[in-house]
């Protein structure tokens, strides 16, 4: 029997080594595998290269991993945000490297890694600082930059549900980088709200087929859902709303 289920997040992140390249799903907080990141902090692997769209928000999740000093380099498109103080401080102190990649090139380079493409010509970034030193070519009258795949040792992603084969379904815009990171890493670990029996996921609607997934771990339902249905009652960070009377 194929069973990619692991019992807890510690088992899910076991074996991640110092110096590894780790893709972490999510766009801002949506789809960020916070429980897996917490487990990676507890696990302690350091000198990591982390691939994510951003560089952490507030003090939790990816920001906490950065604060723990485990990250040597970030590959991302948009590190600087109103709440990226952890990264900002480390960067200004020279304690973390940054490779800045336009968001669509980041996505396509990750996709290329999973799809066995050795390189591709993209129009994005042509003529800008972010393409300096890169090979360019004019094809059919349009200018392109040659970009290469970004691969990873491990991908940590978040999805709504899985089955024991590792098939995944996502929810709304929390899908974002999950499917392409799952395909681009040697080992892919998915945290999900729930693991359902094999055959419960609609094969027309499986977004990440199980062959891309190595381990799945159930971490419980998000606070804004009940039995898979949206019930709300939280703020954008997922924290329960204060009582109406207490609101400022």
């Amino acid at each position, binding site marked *: 029997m194929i069973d990619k289920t692991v019992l807890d997040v510690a088992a899910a992140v076991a074996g991640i080594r110092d110096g590894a390249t780790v893709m972490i799903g999510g766009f801002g907080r949506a789809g960020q595998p916070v429980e897996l990141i917490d487990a990676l902090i507890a696990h302690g692997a350091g000198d990591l290269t982390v691939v994510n769209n951003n560089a952490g928000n507030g003090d939790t999740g990816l920001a906490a991993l950065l604060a723990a000093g485990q990250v040597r380099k970030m590959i991302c498109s948009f590190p600087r945000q109103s709440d990226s103080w952890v990264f900002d401080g480390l960067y200004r102190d020279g304690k973390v490297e940054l490779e800045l990649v*336009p968001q669509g090139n980041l996505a396509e380079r990750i996709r290329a890694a999973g799809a066995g493409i050795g390189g591709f010509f993209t129009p994005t970034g042509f003529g800008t600082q972010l393409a300096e030193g890169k090979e360019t070519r004019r094809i059919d009258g349009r200018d392109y930059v040659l970009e290469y795949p970004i691969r990873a040792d491990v991908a940590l992603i978040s999805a709504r549900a899985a089955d024991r084969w590792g098939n995944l379904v996502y929810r*709304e815009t929390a899908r974002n980088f999950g499917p*392409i990171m799952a395909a681009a890493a040697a080992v892919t670990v998915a945290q999900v709200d729930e693991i359902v029996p094999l055959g419960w996921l609609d094969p027309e609607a499986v977004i990440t087929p199980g062959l891309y997934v190595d381990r799945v771990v159930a971490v419980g339902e998000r606070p*804004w859902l009940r039995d898979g249905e949206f019930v709300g009652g939280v703020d954008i960070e997922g924290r329960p709303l204060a009582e109406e009377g207490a609101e400022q």
Partner: protein
Amino acid sequence: MTTTRISRAALAARVASDIPEGAVVNLGIGAPTLVADFLPEGLEIVLHTENGMLGMGAAPARGQVDPDLINAGKQPVTALAGAAYFHHADSFAMMRGGHLDVCVLGAFQVSAGGNLANWSTGEPGAIPAVGGAMDLAIGAKDVYVMTDLLTKGGDPKLVAACSYPLTGVGCVSRVYTDHGVFDVTPDGFRVRELFGDNTHAEIEQLLGLELEA
């Protein structure tokens, strides 16, 4: 010289009035997001958000905020009937492949050749962040810029050549400013519309640039 300047909201309305029914539109972070509030009621316009959705709706009521459903600015949004979700590579393939009709973006500078600078002022020590700006710049049939004509310090934002780092080359089709609307043509900026009593000569003087009529 006193010139007419319209408000940010009026400018958003002006941009919105040029977007036809059925258009697929991406509104950049910041001021362009305002355009959504002025899209004509009753017309169906499909909003794309590059974090993986078509058919984006308005902000939710308090209590109905869904952390899984956000726009590119990471603000909570809703989904309209007819919406679809997709992953990031598919989302940017839509842009890069030319399937969006209109992107509306902010700018530090736009050059007469249609170059856009909107991601970095090149300040030493600043933390660079580009996000989807470079993809958006080349990612629609029409790229509209929405901006003030001048910086707060009075420097022109429509320029002969950008001094700030470029976001995209030859990508802007039209610039909506607080003073008027300008098309980017092979011969440089062409005045499309001037607000209030603004004259061609006044705007040329403000910019230090010749404009096509």
